[in-house]
């Protein structure tokens, strides 16, 4: 599609439960990025992919967070044993590969609002 599609729009989980978020990048885009946006618009980088390969996961709390981008499937971000501090809006973005990833703007979905109760 022509837009990054994120589902669900809103996800509510009890503390300790699992949460799984999905992202369908724009068709033809090779790069996928996940961000966490908490208060005051602070965007925190989580992980990036080139196709199904992880390229930078330095932002991921590895104990509980995992992400995948498999062929012919939406990308996913999974949080095990959620904590109250995981409450945030999670954004997915995709970009083209033409000219190198640093030259290309990222196209964002509208995010998934995760609420941990």
């Amino acid at each position, binding site marked *: 599609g022509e837009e990054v599609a994120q589902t669900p729009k809103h996800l509510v989980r009890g503390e300790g439960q699992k949460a799984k978020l999905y992202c369908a990048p724009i068709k033809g885009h090779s790069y996928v990025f996940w961000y966490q946006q908490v208060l*005051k618009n602070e965007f925190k980088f989580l992980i990036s992919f080139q196709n199904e390969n992880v*390229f930078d996961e330095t932002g991921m709390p590895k104990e509980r967070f995992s992400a995948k981008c498999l062929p012919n499937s939406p990308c996913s971000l999974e949080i095990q044993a959620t904590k109250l501090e995981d409450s945030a809006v999670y*954004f997915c973005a995709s970009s083209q590969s033409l000219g190198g990833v640093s030259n290309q703007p*990222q196209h964002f979905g509208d995010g998934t609002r995760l609420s941990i109760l």
Partner: protein
Amino acid sequence: EDQVTQSPEALRLQEGESSSLNCSYTVSGLRGLFWYRQDPGKGPEFLFTLYSAGEEKEKERLKATLTKKESFLHITAPKPEDSATYLCAVPITGGFKTIFGAGTRLFVKA
């Protein structure tokens, strides 16, 4: 340490009152600087990419400029529909990681 800082945090303007938003950065080997606009409940929308000092880009009432240490987003004669959060972002580590500034929330009153 790579860092992107935006100022002011919030800016309130009257319609038609021109102003500028600032994005200062500290990164090793700038590969590009991006400006995005974010409306409430939405993802950021791409505005501009700047690659080298001295470069300028324009779109309607917006003009972005870049120096070796900072970028400015100039807003000329803003309208209420320009109200949004403006984000500055810089790719690092070959572009596979991007750091964002905290954004400037712009309010334009009619």
